[in-house]
């Protein structure tokens, strides 16, 4: 499985994502700069966490309009799997690849901690290694992870199995405690928690690793 990590100015989990992908797939991902109009054909694209463009104006707003995202959108629409973590999730909602928006945490505080997530969908490309209904532990680190969508959208998401993960407890005010969302086709996942930070016991656990392994198992 060949992967790419998109790097925006201000991305800061790009290396962490690359390390996780390399550990699981055995291959170094290609690091793709935000100005690239085109890049090598890959099986998997990751949008990492961080503060792209300083999170100025709105988190992810400027990255969503960057050159490279035009290509990412094209490929996502063509079915290439795309994972957006934290800032990457924000970018995905800003592009419209995923519905909704991520607003300032209800506490207004940045929150960095391990959180328990309930696995809601265990059938997707990204989550097939988990068991629905079980709880996993993955850290969050964000200021704007408060997921918002209108009621119809939320109902549709739940109805179509597009909610991938839910926080076991309210940590940021997200509607229906939604922590991760899939697109309709199931090839795009955005999530606030950082699976790449939980890939070995030394870091506190391996629950995040399963996500990458799920993708790997499907894509080979």
């Amino acid at each position, binding site marked *: 499985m060949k992967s790419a990590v998109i790097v925006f*100015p*201000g991305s*800061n*989990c790009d*290396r*962490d994502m690359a*390390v*996780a992908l390399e550990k699981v797939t055995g291959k170094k991902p290609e690091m793709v700069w935000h100005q690239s109009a085109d890049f090598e054909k890959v099986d998997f694209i990751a949008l990492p*966490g*961080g*503060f792209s*463009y*300083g*999170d*100025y104006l709105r988190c992810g707003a400027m990255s969503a309009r960057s050159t490279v995202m035009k290509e990412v959108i094209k490929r996502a629409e063509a079915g290439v799997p795309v994972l957006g973590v934290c800032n990457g999730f924000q970018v995905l909602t800003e592009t419209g690849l995923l519905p909704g928006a991520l607003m300032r945490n209800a506490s207004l*505080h*940045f*929150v*960095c*901690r391990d959180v328990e997530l309930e696995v809601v969908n265990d059938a997707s490309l990204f989550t097939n290694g988990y068991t629905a209904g079980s709880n996993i532990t993955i*850290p969050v*680190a964000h*200021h704007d992870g408060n997921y918002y969508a209108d009621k119809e959208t939320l109902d549709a998401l739940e109805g179509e199995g597009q909610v991938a993960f839910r926080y076991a407890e309210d940590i940021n005010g997200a509607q229906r405690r939604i922590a991760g969302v899939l697109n309709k086709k199931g090839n795009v996942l955005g999530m606030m928690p*950082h699976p*790449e*930070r939980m890939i070995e016991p*030394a*870091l*506190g656990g391996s629950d995040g690793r399963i996500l990458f392994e799920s993708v790997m198992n499907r894509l080979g």
Partner: protein
Amino acid sequence: MTDTKITPEIVRDHGLTPKEYDLILKGLGREPNLTELGIYSVMWSEHCSYKSSKIHLKKLPTKAPWVICGPGENAGVIDIGDGQAAIFKMESHNHPSFIEPYQGAATGVGGILRDVFTMGARPVANMNALRFGEPDHPKTRHLVAGVVSGIGGYGNCVGVPTVGGETNFDPSYNGNILVNAMTVGLADAEKIFYSAAAGVGNPVVYVGSKTGRDGIHGATMASAEFTDDSEEKRPTVQVGDPFTEKLLIEACLELMATDAIVAIQDMGAAGLTSSSVEMASKGGVGFELILDNVPQREENMLPYEMMLSESQERMLMVLKPGREEMAKAIFEKWELDFAVIGHITDTGNLTLKFKGETVGDIPLNTLVDDAPEYDRPHTATPKRKAVDVEAPKDLKKAVMDLIGGPNLCSRRWIWSQYDHMVMGDTIQRPGGDAAVVRVHGTEKALAISTDVTPRYCYADPVEGGKQAVAETWRNITATGGLPLAITNCLNFGNPERPEIMGQIVGCLEGMAEACVALDYPIVSGNVSLYNETNGKGILPTPAIGGVGILKQSKHMATVPFKGDGQVIMLFGETKNELGASLYQREILKKDEGLPPVVDLAVERRNGDFVRALIENGQLTTVHDLSDGGLIAALADMAISGKTGATITLDDSLPLHVHLFSESQSRYLIAAEPDEAETIRQEARDAGLAVAVLGTTGGDSITVNGGALDLPLAALTAAHEGWFPAFMKNEL
């Protein structure tokens, strides 16, 4: 501009004494113009010149075989083996943080990051040592909120984990909080970058953000005592842009991977002035700067303003000739300003050109060599008398009040607002004795801790200075790390008062003694004086930041108990040392008696023993004893491990002394039952005082068959509850 007549008032407004002004006249051989006066004033400010502390700082031990670069550069550099180096420094941003807590703290983080990456390191960890006034003071909550969000706001965005620190409350900081930030970075030992300029004709290059009128006179402000009207001096506050800092780190590291750079220095306090003066004087060359070329954010900036601006996120470099275009391309890729603003000369002068005219021309040696240096009068802190410290009226309440009080409660409220995991190498998160961060891609890890107990330094500066160094050493040791070197941030009151100067001299003496005894040199540091408001000084606060190494990070100890049935042992001797203890101050509301004494030979022996056990894989649960004594350490281990404990303390000391004494060089450990006896025997053989106290398990801490019984649930609620309740104004 050149016409402004320099009056005694102007001289005074620049924080220069008449004598210092005479030195300027003599050095220049003429009257300075305003720009030149401004340059002298910032270079000769306490902040930049260390004029009150220099002669004493010289006494600090700074050498060891593993020290690559000691004090004098932007940060200290030590060898950590395998061709790698750790680069680190701590710095204060006290005054700006009091005036504008968010921006003050944020720019403090930005500044210390630059000190470290300017030497070629990728920053891998941030620490913050914070002192606030008493919780009841009307400003405290606002200052805590602002400082914490400022540190988080900057560090989180830059993507360097903030992995630890310390936080105290004391009334002496009511009008003068302390915000000390530390950064640790990693570099290739063969590729360290220094600031000495060289090569007549080489281009002097400015990169980063544009220059505005930020913080003009910040460096002089940082050296001036506060009065109530200092809140009027607001426009001197700088605003940080962590996004630009992140780009600057990446761009600088990218350029550093080439061979284009001759010298590099960040623009910190006193911005363009101090960076150019230091680079030129260290290299023994002159600089000619064309100020028209300085990237400017605002219109009509004058030479005075450009030279004194403290706009953030800027660096100055000397490049090899002909590398400008390549360097420029890198900075343009990262969308940063890049400008050749001058070149190196052989005049030995700092020459400033603006609109075709020479607007300043100062012989650098007069700025540096003539800089005033004071041996200020100092009187030693009088020795206190030993006192007997009585037992509390209600032991259980005393313990609960301490564990659930401002100085011992969990700092989770703070560090959960810091991204402490980014970069994927934090293997010991905040909450432990030292933070542990892996050296990326290796088995090695760095252990980092910041400590000082200002109460002790106030009671006895020499013992307090010793203790601060020893405590970082102990904290690093408690994780299994071998302490290698320290940085420091010396926060004191007005050095023109002999008793304050006495504190400085005393603390430095104690620090030096500990550094020698522990093979633990000082490689960088910073001095912040005049921390007082209306003539009342802060507690002497020489914050120490220690760095150590774990060769095999899989052999690491942590604080939490790891299950039931483990044997709890105390290494080190408990003495009747309750003078200047937290118990005495918080519960009895007194501050008297002698602070605990550190026997450095015992410190070393105990620590070396504990570390060896951890390195051998015999021990994974260790906590050192500090503020609050045995009971505080036991509570930490139980709360974090969600496991109670039953212990018995003998009657060699009164129970409250056993529990609250702050005797030094002690560690509390929990061992597997089948290992316990061997460990005890080995400890004996090594000459340690060792006591088997009891076992882990249950849902409370039980001491001496119920003489004290602390349900874990209540203890946890108290420990975790104070900070959030305080910040919500619910206390």
